């Protein structure tokens, strides 16, 4: 059952990602991105990352995806039916991407990965909190400054000049 769920999530993730980059309508792309995020969240659960799965849903689905849909709505006129858009050099892109997947797949399946034994953690939140407050305190504070800068920068950029 777990096996079936895993492969179902993998197929959901990859097919909706394919839809994101190939759909003619931007709105369809945005909604497919929702299913990609949900699928990646499922993979996080399989990787025992419960806290990050929740963060993924809250930040990506609740924040970034809403922002992207707002961006689409604000930059397209519905009446002009110009929400569809085209791609350039699709054939060369497909060629490069298939070659890229081939090379990466060859490397992934031919490398003898060292896998350490591990046990399923009860919860990951406590360990992440400890690491954030002890080992990664400086990056944590830098991230807060970055978020503050992004907040001020985005509001300054998008406000109308008086």
């Amino acid at each position, binding site marked *: 059952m777990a096996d079936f769920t895993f492969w179902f999530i993998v197929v959901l993730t990859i097919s909706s990602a394919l839809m994101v*980059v190939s759909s003619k309508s931007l709105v369809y792309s945005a909604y497919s991105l929702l299913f990609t995020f949900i699928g990646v969240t499922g993979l996080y659960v399989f990787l025992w990352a419960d806290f*990050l799965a929740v963060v993924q849903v809250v930040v990506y689905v609740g924040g970034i995806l809403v922002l992207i849909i707002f961006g689409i709505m604000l930059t397209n006129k519905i009446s002009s039916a110009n929400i569809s858009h085209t791609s350039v050099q699709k054939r060369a892109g497909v060629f490069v991407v298939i070659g890229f997947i081939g090379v990466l797949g060859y490397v992934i399946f031919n490398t003898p990965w060292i896998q350490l034994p591990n046990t399923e953690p009860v919860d*990951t939140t406590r360990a992440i909190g400890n690491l954030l407050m002890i080992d990664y305190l400086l990056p944590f504070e830098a991230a807060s400054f970055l978020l503050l800068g992004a907040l001020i920068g985005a509001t300054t950029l998008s406000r109308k000049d008086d």
Partner: protein
Amino acid sequence: MDSLSNYLMVSAILFSLGLFGVVTRRNGVAVLMGVELILNAANLNFLAFARFGGMNMSGHVYALFVIVLAAAEAAVALAIIINIFNNFNTINIDDVSELRQ
């Protein structure tokens, strides 16, 4: 299901699709969606290596920082895209090749 290669392969495919989107799309918002796919692929790699590398929690912290960066990047990028739309009346990034109109 329980092997590192499967997760790495899913991540590689996600990354390649994101790259395809960034390279071939002409709409600014669609390019942003490709970037989000790439960041998700990177996160999947971090967590897969953390899970199969003895449940090392540093990978989780790095994934958290990637999510923070993705949120900041999306907000600023959309502000820039809306500004471009106000100035040029298009977000086709091939048409936006001048610093002033």
